[in-house]
């Protein structure tokens, strides 16, 4: 997590076309967001895009804490959920009193809600970093989630509070009834929030956050109070989480206590960490992957949450930099032109690794469907969960795949070392 490139190194390596490239990325993202629903226009994919967009904002806001300031929070959904609830209440009030509030500013209201709560509890919470912060964030999360079931008039108890997004003042003739209009609203906020959060990492505050993450003691010596820095980071994270919550409230037209709960906090942690917390774009990848898996796996298997757990454990143990970390590791090799020497060993390693993964999947599905007797359809091959042949196949795949994969990955590491040495000689790797 601490292997983020230092600014001086990154700045020195920036090519002449860096500025163009920098704006080009955001421009491309904007174009992609506009064009996506035109290519995939079905209702299902539109709904997925909306969920992914919200998940991206939420995961990026989480990374302000975990990746940039080094605060591991187990209760980030509190700000998200409270933002959602405030958004719903303002929407309902706006509709009842005919306030001139158009729907597109509602996420801002959610953001203010999330920030207000962060303002309230943040000072106490951010006194300490590390494990103490993790525990108190868990405690606050449980506290708010349980309280939400008691304060029924505000949180609507088990059923939550509903709203109607079309009842607000229309803007540019848009009522935001159709999903496509909601999509563009979400896409707009995704882009704005992502740019804002990226800009935040470039400000002196963002830089001092990184310093607080890496060495709070030295930050104190140069005259900053790490507590204040953590507090500010916590508020910004709460603000953007609230925006995501407000968008969720608009998307589903409901806010309920599940938004505040531990499951939601766990999912955002998974997204950010699987994507990779050391790079800004990591959580975006993670949010896309986790949401996509969440939507895709539920129809395939009943134990999809277990796969999340397994993927997460795998990432924590073998690639703590997440997907972004894996990708960025290859950058110096590509620049040095030595990536080609690593690829053959990768191709060899892929086969037993895939076999191992398939074995794990087969084992999990065998256990899950043992009593139900459903047929497991793996790559078009039907397996019966109660048949000993299936167990044997799973055992062979897991054990054999693991043993062979271990050897091949060692060879990958050797090839990697050779390529990295060359890259180092050519000056592309520090």
């Amino acid at each position, binding site marked *: 997590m601490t292997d983020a490139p230092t600014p001086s190194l990154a700045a020195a390596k920036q090519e002449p076309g860096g500025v163009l490239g920098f704006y080009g990325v955001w421009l491309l993202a904007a174009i992609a967001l506009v064009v996506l629903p035109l290519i995939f226009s079905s209702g299902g994919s539109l709904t997925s895009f909306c969920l992914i967009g919200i998940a991206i904002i939420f995961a990026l806001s989480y990374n302000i804490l975990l990746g940039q300031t080094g605060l591991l929070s187990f209760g980030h959904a509190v700000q998200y959920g409270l933002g959602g609830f405030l958004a719903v209440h303002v929407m309902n009030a706006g509709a009842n009193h005919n306030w001139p509030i158009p729907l597109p500013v509602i996420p801002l209201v959610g953001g203010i809600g999330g920030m207000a709560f962060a303002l309230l509890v943040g000072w*106490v919470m951010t*006194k300490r970093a590390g*494990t103490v912060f993790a525990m108190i964030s868990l*405690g606050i999360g449980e506290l708010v989630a*349980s309280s939400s079931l008691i*304060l029924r008039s*505000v949180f609507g108890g088990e059923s939550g509070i509903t709203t109607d997004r079309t009842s607000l003042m229309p803007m540019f003739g848009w009522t935001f009834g159709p999903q496509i209009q909601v999509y563009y609203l979400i896409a707009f906020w995704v882009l704005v929030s992502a740019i804002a959060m990226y800009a935040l990492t470039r400000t002196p505050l963002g830089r001092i956050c990184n310093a607080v993450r890496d060495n709070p003691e030295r930050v104190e010596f140069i005259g900053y109070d790490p507590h204040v820095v953590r507090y500010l980071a916590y508020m910004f994270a709460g603000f953007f989480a609230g925006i995501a919550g407000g968008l969720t409230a608009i998307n589903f037209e409901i806010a309920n206590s599940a938004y505040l709960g531990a499951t939601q906090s766990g999912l955002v942690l998974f997204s950010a960490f699987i994507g990779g917390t050391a790079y800004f774009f990591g959580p975006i990848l993670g949010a896309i992957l986790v949401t996509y898996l969440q939507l895709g796996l539920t129809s395939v298997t009943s134990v999809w949450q277990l796969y999340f*757990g397994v993927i997460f454990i795998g990432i*924590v143990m073998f690639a703590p930099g997440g997907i972004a970390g894996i990708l960025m590791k290859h950058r110096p090799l590509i620049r040095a032109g030595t990536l080609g020497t690593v690829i053959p060993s990768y191709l060899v390693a892929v086969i037993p690794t895939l076999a191992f993964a398939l074995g794990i999947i087969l084992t999990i599905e065998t256990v899950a469907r043992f009593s139900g007797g459903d047929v497991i359809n793996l790559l078009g091959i039907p397996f019966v969960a109660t048949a000993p042949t299936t167990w044997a196949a799973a055992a062979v795949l897991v054990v054999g795949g693991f043993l062979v994969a271990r050897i091949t990955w060692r060879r990958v590491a050797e090839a990697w070392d050779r390529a990295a040495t060359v890259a180092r000689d050519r000056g592309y790797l520090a």
Partner: protein
Amino acid sequence: MAELIVISTLNGVLFGMLLFLLSSGLTVIFSMMGVLNFAHASFYMLGAFFGYQLTRWIGFWPALVIAPLLVGVVGMGVERYGLRNTHKHGHVAELLLTFGLAFAIEEIVSMIWGKSPVDYRVPAVLDFPAFTIFSTNYPAYKIFMLVVSVVIFIALLVTLKRTRVGLIVQAALTHPSMVGHLGHNVGRVFMLVFGVGSALAGLAGVIAGPSLVTQSDMAALLGPILFVVIVFGGLGSLPGAFIASLLIGLIQTFAVALNGSLASVFGPLDPSLGPSPLTDIWNVTIAQIAPILPYLLLVLVLIFRPMGLLGTRES
């Protein structure tokens, strides 16, 4: 009233002792290895489910011994092959590994045994009222639970204070690297402590299973309370964990038994006010806020005494 006090005290002490079976392992693991084990409550749940399954196959008494041992083996495996490899990535990675494990164990348990409660019954030998007090029958099984946890508590105390292993563990609590320098295999000590801690959690699960509900969400319900206990008692302090366990056990039990609300003390609010957060707070009973009390306590402790009751360090 006297009945309520006696019964709730008994139940509270019992719950507190169960909490101590878990929190003792958690706090020793935390102070030795710096790892806050999120999966500790999951080991408790594994104990309950292993106990249930083994009770069905070979009976309760063998299960009482074998299930905790199995959980201990699982715990040692987690330490040896999981945490030890993750250690180089730092404490956050270790914490996240146990978090992922807790998540995965819950899913595996609900995959194998289902999401609804399993029929884990009190063994027939102990299924009788031990004594009758104020016309309430107090079950013998609860007395059995109390006896087991007190015996384990004493055994733990003697091991820590009177044996050589206990001496090393105590030393490793405060000065882990010094213990390593003195030639002890710290890795093996860690693995054993992790295993014993998990086994204790498993034992708590085996004996608590028939009395409480054995269900796949029991870890998620108990886990956060455990953290409250060890923070409240002071991280790394065993006596602190003991006091905090009893205190939280008693607070929880008494709160659940009390039915008072602000409305019952000061009379109902004027109905013309309509529903508002005030009426919610006015009408909520102490029993209803019982689940929040530990977390309120946690927040208060972290504000006013961040090192906990008997703790000596802040993080």
